[in-house]
Structure formats: C-alpha cells, structure tokens
C-alpha cells in the first residue's frame, strides 16, 4: 500500500486534532456542552483542503482515539461527542451541493450549530428528557455561534497562510489527489 504526501498530512492533522481535543477536555467548562471546539478548526481545514471524506476520517478518528485515551469510550461523553460530530458532518455534506458558495466562516458557524443540535437531541432523548433542558438551548446556541465564528476566522487565517483558496473545492476532485 502506497501512501501519498497528502495521506501523511492528513495523519499529522488527525494527530494535531486529537492533541487539541485532549487539551480542551482538561479546561473547565461553565456549562456542560459549552466548549470552544478548537479541534474543529482542524476539521474545517481538512474539509477545505482535502474534502468531506477526509474530514469525516479526521473527526471520527479524533473522537475514537481521544475517548480511548481519556477513558471515556462508550460513556455518555463519548456518545454526545459522536452524535455532535455526526450531525456536524451531515450539515457539512449539504454544502457540497454548492461548494463555491461557502467559505470557512459560514461552514464553521453551520457546523457548530449542527454539532450542538445533535448533542442536544441525544442528551434530551437518552439522558435528560426534561423540559427544563430547553431553557438552556438559547445559551448553548449563542455559544455555538460565537465559537463557530471564532473558529471560522482562525481557519480562514490558517488557510490563507497555507496559500489555500478559502472556498470549498469540489470534494469529488479531492477524493483521489
């Protein structure tokens, strides 16, 4: 099996995402579910540079390895992470219909909202089916939009540094570089 330069890059980026994921899990959180989600900067960069499939790999590997290292595999934390990631990736997939229309900022905000929406649905269905949870939703969404914007700006800056156009390229072209 031959590996390309891009494969190596994706592997490095996955490692970096796991590192960020681990560091962030040590930060205190004012509210469960409110986190900057800085690892998603990597997801976003991979999405822009290597396409949606690669982004799926990086994200799912990050969650799997991260949870194994933190000892949260198959715990509620893991299920919430995973569900958030799946909705986030699904939302990103919809932008493939018009790849040229979206830059990192819009994608980042969209994915952050989708992420928290997925987590919220799972938290409500599986763990806390209590109406009171809904009163948290505005705060959670505000945090998601704010961190989405910040992560989007960071990704845009990084992509400019790397000399990459800040438009989602046709991912089909990127499947086999």
């Amino acid at each position, binding site marked *: 099996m031959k590996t390309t330069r891009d494969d190596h890059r994706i592997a490095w980026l996955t490692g970096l995402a796991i590192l960020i994921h681990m560091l962030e899990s040590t930060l205190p959180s004012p509210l469960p579910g409110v986190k900057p989600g800085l690892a998603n900067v990597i997801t976003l960069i991979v999405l822009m540079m290597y396409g949606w499939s690669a982004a799926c790999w990086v994200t799912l590997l990050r969650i799997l390895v991260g949870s194994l290292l933190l000892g949260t595999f198959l715990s509620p934390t893991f299920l919430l992470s995973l569900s958030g990631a799946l909705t986030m990736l699904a939302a990103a997939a919809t932008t493939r219909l018009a790849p040229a229309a979206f830059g990192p*900022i819009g994608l980042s905000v969209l994915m952050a909202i989708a992420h928290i929406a997925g987590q919220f649905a799972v938290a409500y269905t599986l763990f806390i089916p209590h109406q009171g949870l809904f009163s948290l939703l505005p705060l959670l969404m505000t945090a998601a939009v704010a961190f989405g914007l910040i992560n989007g700006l960071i990704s845009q800056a990084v992509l400019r540094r790397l000399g990459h156009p800040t438009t989602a390229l046709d991912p089909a072209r990127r499947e086999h570089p």
Partner: protein
Amino acid sequence: MKSGDYLIVTLAAIMLIALYVNMWSAPQQAGDRVRIVAEGSEPIIAPLDRDHVYRIHGRLGDSVIEIHQGRIHFASSPCPGKQCIHAGWLERDGDFAACLPNGITVTVLGRNPRFDAINF
C-alpha cells in the same frame, strides 16, 4: 466571506433572536403558579401573583378559593370538617390543601418542584 457565508450567519442570527424571544415570552417564567383540581373537570392553573377569587363547584357545593398577595387559601367550603380552611394560606412550592368531601385540591407549583410526591 462568500454569499453562502452571509446567508448562514444571517440565518444563525435570526435563529438566536427567535430562541431568546421564545424563551422570554414563555408563560409563567417567573413566580409561582397554583393548580386547582376539582373532581371530574380540567385543572385550573393560575398565577399566584394575581389576586383572584375562584368559586369551584364540587360534590357538595361551591368552595371559594382566594388568591391574595402571592398566597392562596380555601376561604369557604360546604364540607362539614373544614380541614381545607384550617390548612390556612399556602405559598411555598409544593404546599398543598385538599377538601376531600368536596373533591377539590389546591397545589402550589414551582418552576422546579422540590419533590416528586409528598408523603403523609
């Protein structure tokens, strides 16, 4: 920023506004409510901060239930024992009075009820 980015950010802003408006306009956010249940009819839910006198029809006749200055009590009742009137004013979360002969109960509800049930 691309056109799609503007669209997403605008929609996100609208969604946030809608969420906050919905949260603040939700009924009975602040303050407590009371639930008045008469046998065989729909419960009445009323705010405790609005003075009002209810005349509730029960098995034996009409019970008069008064809300005054954030408290509620049975003002009069056709029952023989008058235990419901002796219960006095209710104001705290979970406070409860009943007129069993007349089939009427009054419960103070809070936003987060402290107990799921009261043992007595």
